[in-house]
């Protein structure tokens, strides 16, 4: 059954307006129809999780139509706000595969069967992005002879940049859930509970607590709940630590980076510990990291840019003589499920990477993401927290207290 939108719901998002905003932008760019294929576009327009290859076709006016791999179509139709008539399945059947069916549909929705069709083509370091593949492009180009395929993803990127109240509330709830996960992990490892535990077990404890609190899944493609202990916390770069069977050991750091999803809003928060004990040197590293996290959170506000913030923070690290251990990046982009890469638009010096001169605006949401890594000493920390950019500061969505605790 199609989900009904309720404007009184605190998680309400005006999806029909999103579609009409896309259509208005299409008209400005003389695009007659938009063929969306990215996970982020599907989430942002359909309000449904689409893990299988899916497409959304947005005509010049009227409802969008989703095309979903047949095994998942009934479930998506049940989850989305789009009515059943506009959720179609595709399968390897005559006239029903994703190329022929969608090309037919596009022709039927273009005046004279021809026009300018917006597609989503580009690149990303985020693997499940969902760009139209080269093969798909060629097939649609041939099937839509007489039409012009033009890259148009900026339309969605621009509209999705500033988050509305419903989206921010979904992120707030996802962060509340993440905090429940941290509470459960803290309780489990306390009083020598950590002894004999593995990273995978920590990941599972957090997952269970977050699921109990309403999380739909541990969404991160980097390994669900990312847990690292010992030397793995200090791996250079250090932004991907899917939990392993490594056992927690005394005197070692433990990094707990957990992820929740609530109505396609994403929770993502990292907390750090030492298990058993910590040396003065380890505590020095920890204090350095906490200082820079506090300073960074204080610095975020509308009007600053990633590069000005990085310059300021790296200067602070230099002054404290720990700049060698800081990864010089302080954030990553975030949006509804599938939007987890670049900050802002594709307008920087390196295509499809964050523009270092992107100027933050009020109600942008990003993940404040910081990594401290000292591989020589087998120590590292990670801080992540979704933040909402405000005029004169930022709202930290996870409220879990900042700290690096020594758990006995």
């Amino acid at each position: 059954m199609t989900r009904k939108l309720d404007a009184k719901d605190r998680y309400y998002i005006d999806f029909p307006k999103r579609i009409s905003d896309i259509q208005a932008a299409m008209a400005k760019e003389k695009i007659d129809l938009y063929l969306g294929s990215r996970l982020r576009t599907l989430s942002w327009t359909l309000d449904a999780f689409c893990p299988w290859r899916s497409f959304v076709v947005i005509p010049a006016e009227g409802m969008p139509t989703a095309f979903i791999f047949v095994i998942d179509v009934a479930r998506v139709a049940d989850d989305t706000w789009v009515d059943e008539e506009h959720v179609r399945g595709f399968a390897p059947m005559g006239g029903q595969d994703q190329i022929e069916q969608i090309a037919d549909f596009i022709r039927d929705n273009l005046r004279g069967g021809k026009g300018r069709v917006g597609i989503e083509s580009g690149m990303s370091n985020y693997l499940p992005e969902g760009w139209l593949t080269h093969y798909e492009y060629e097939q649609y180009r041939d099937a839509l002879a007489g039409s012009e395929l033009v890259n148009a993803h900026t339309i969605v990127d621009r509209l999705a940049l500033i988050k509305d109240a419903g989206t921010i509330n979904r992120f707030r709830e996802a962060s509340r859930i993440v905090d429940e996960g941290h509470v459960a992990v803290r309780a489990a490892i306390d009083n020598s509970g950590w002894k004999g535990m593995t990273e995978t077990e920590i990941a599972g404890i957090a997952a269970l607590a977050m699921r109990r609190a309403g999380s739909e899944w541990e969404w991160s493609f980097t390994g669900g709940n990312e847990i690292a202990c010992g030397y793995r916390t200090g791996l250079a770069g250090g932004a991907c630590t899917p939990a392993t069977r490594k056992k927690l050991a005394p005197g070692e750091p433990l990094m707990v980076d957990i992820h929740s999803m609530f109505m396609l809003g994403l929770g993502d928060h990292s907390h750090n510990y030492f298990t058993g004990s910590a040396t003065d040197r380890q505590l020095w590293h920890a204090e350095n990291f906490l200082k820079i996290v506090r300073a960074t959170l204080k610095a975020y506000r509308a009007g600053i840019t990633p590069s000005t913030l990085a310059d300021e923070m790296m200067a602070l690290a230099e002054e404290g003589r720990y700049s060698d251990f800081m990864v010089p990046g302080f954030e990553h982009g975030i949006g509804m499920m599938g939007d987890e890469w670049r900050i802002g638009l594709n307008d920087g010096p390196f295509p499809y990477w964050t523009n270092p001169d992107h100027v933050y605006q009020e109600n942008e949401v990003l993940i404040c993401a910081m990594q401290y890594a000292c591989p020589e000493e087998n120590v590292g920390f990670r801080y992540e927290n979704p933040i909402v950019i405000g005029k004169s500061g930022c709202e930290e969505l996870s409220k879990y207290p900042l700290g690096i605790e020594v758990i006995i």
Partner: protein
Amino acid sequence: MSGTIKYLSPEWRSEVEKLLKAELSPEKMNNISSSMSNIYRNCPDGKERYFHVKFDNGAVSSVSVGDGTPPEAEFIITGEYEVFAKISRAELGAQKALMTGKLKLKGNMVKALKLASVVDRLNKVIAKIPAEY
């Protein structure tokens, strides 16, 4: 009924309508409201023909055959005449014909899947008509 009737002829259409009304109650058709047009390419005389059937609340409301453009339908199935003939003679399954691309379905596949069993019932009734291809 004795002898054979030419497939897709007006007589065949009348026989289809009579049999469907007699053998498929609205309950048996799950009280569906839908319509389907089969488009037959390369008929023996080289023409393109159609067969159209419509149900309202499970009752047959329209059956037609003809040349050229079929009436609007929720589902359009297109294929070679010989493929449809093979299906009617039970030499080829309709599903296999779709899965191998011998037939092409246009319409909402999710709905089509829900209607697969009733369409099967319909085809079985039509197959009872001794037709000359």
